[in-house]
């Protein structure tokens, strides 16, 4: 994982972009402080966003990491930790060939 991705601003921008695309929300309406509730994101939307994020960053987000996320900041922080600790295994390793 390239170092710049771990940097927060770029990460935040990409996370917002993924959420916007998957939820059909204009990116301008999403900020780092937006909560899922404010954005009208429910649990099924949540797993859809996680799927899109896994594809975007080519990582696996464990179920434990997905719990307790209530807004954009939670996602950015969780992804940041995941990438830094390298706990998110590269998806390629687990994917079917």
């Amino acid at each position: 994982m390239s170092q710049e991705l771990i940097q927060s601003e770029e990460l935040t921008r990409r996370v917002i972009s993924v959420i916007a695309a998957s939820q059909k929300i204009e990116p301008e309406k999403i900020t780092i402080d937006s909560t899922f509730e404010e954005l009208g994101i429910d649990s099924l939307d949540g797993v859809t966003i996680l799927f899109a994020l896994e594809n975007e960053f080519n990582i696996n987000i464990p179920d434990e990491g997905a719990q307790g996320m209530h807004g954009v900041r939670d996602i950015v922080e969780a992804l940041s930790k995941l990438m830094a600790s390298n706990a998110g295994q590269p998806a390629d390793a687990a994917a079917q060939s």
Partner: protein
Amino acid sequence: MSRRRVVITGIGVISALGRNASEFRQALQEGRCGIGPIRQLDVSSLRFQNGAEVSGYDPGQYFHDKEPDFLDRFAQFAVIAAREAVADARIEWTDALRERSAIVTGSCVGGKTTEDDGYVNLYLERKPRVNPLTIPRAMGNAGASQISMETGICGPTYTISTACSSSNHAIGQAFWMVRDGQVELALAGGSEAPFAMGNLKAWEAMRVVSPDTCRPFSKNRRGMILGEGGAMLVLEPLEAALARGATIYAEIVGFGMSSDAHHLTQPSVDGPARALRGAICDAGIAIEQIGYINAHGTGTAVNDPTEVRAIRLALGAHAERVAISSTKSMHGHALGAAGAIEAAATAFALRDGVIPPTANFTELDPQCDLDIVANTARHAEVEYALSSSFAFGGLNAVVAFRKNR
């Protein structure tokens, strides 16, 4: 049309708790959990490794020559359960009875292993063609059709697919047909074989499958555990059963169904409550007569407390006095077969006076603080019981049973 009383005179079960109904019944009473590492396929790329498989299953013990080629694993389970139920009921077939008999089966996903094999051929191995039996093997009614051909039953025969409520809907519809005199006998239940990689990956993406085991209503629950298997019941009018001296396991007395009209995956409280009330109302009994509920109890974070609220809404103060267990903790969540497997569990519970437990229960959840029968079966003479199925898509089906006296 006069209503007839409807009784269960035959039960067949193949599940993670054994390959016949008596093994199933014994395992339930022992509180034995059939969950373990998935062995049918390599699941090392999945976040979950455990499931409730039919262990030691060899199709060659049940099907001969070309037979297994025509039947997906899910349809095989339907046929095996149906054969056991029919033999158990000791039905004396006549042409007239076959014409006046019904088969209603439930399945959520149909022949997923067959479809998966076809896709592997097509997309992975780049083969230009797939097995011509893919369509008849994978179709949801494959089990019902095969049972029809084997038994000669040629009355109403169909399959219901309402996700996790499929076989409760099947049993309910069959019950109504027998009760109303549309048929003289019905074979009702369901089967499922969801352990195909594409389907398992889809469940993984839903993030509702437990990485360890299934702990319904327990505070430390971590999700559902997928199960496979099949269960079938023979239903017939009480008078006919008595006339031929049949063994009666239990009576089916009511059926209720509803739709949440709410969300694809988030359950509501109101919808399940209306199905519970519908079954009680259809049975013409008082709420206070209910002694046991075989709950939907998937063990997910959301289902269990929502179901508890639904039970409280439907049963009022009596909810605190009803014994509740989820046998999915032992046989897993067999999706479209769940209702049928749990109907068998409920019928045995009433007949034997033994309520099967919720296995793997370790910690009381204040949000699920009803009388959860935990870990050890409870001896209790119960007259009326309910068995609930609440499906994705918000489709709810509840069957009401009465102890045979």
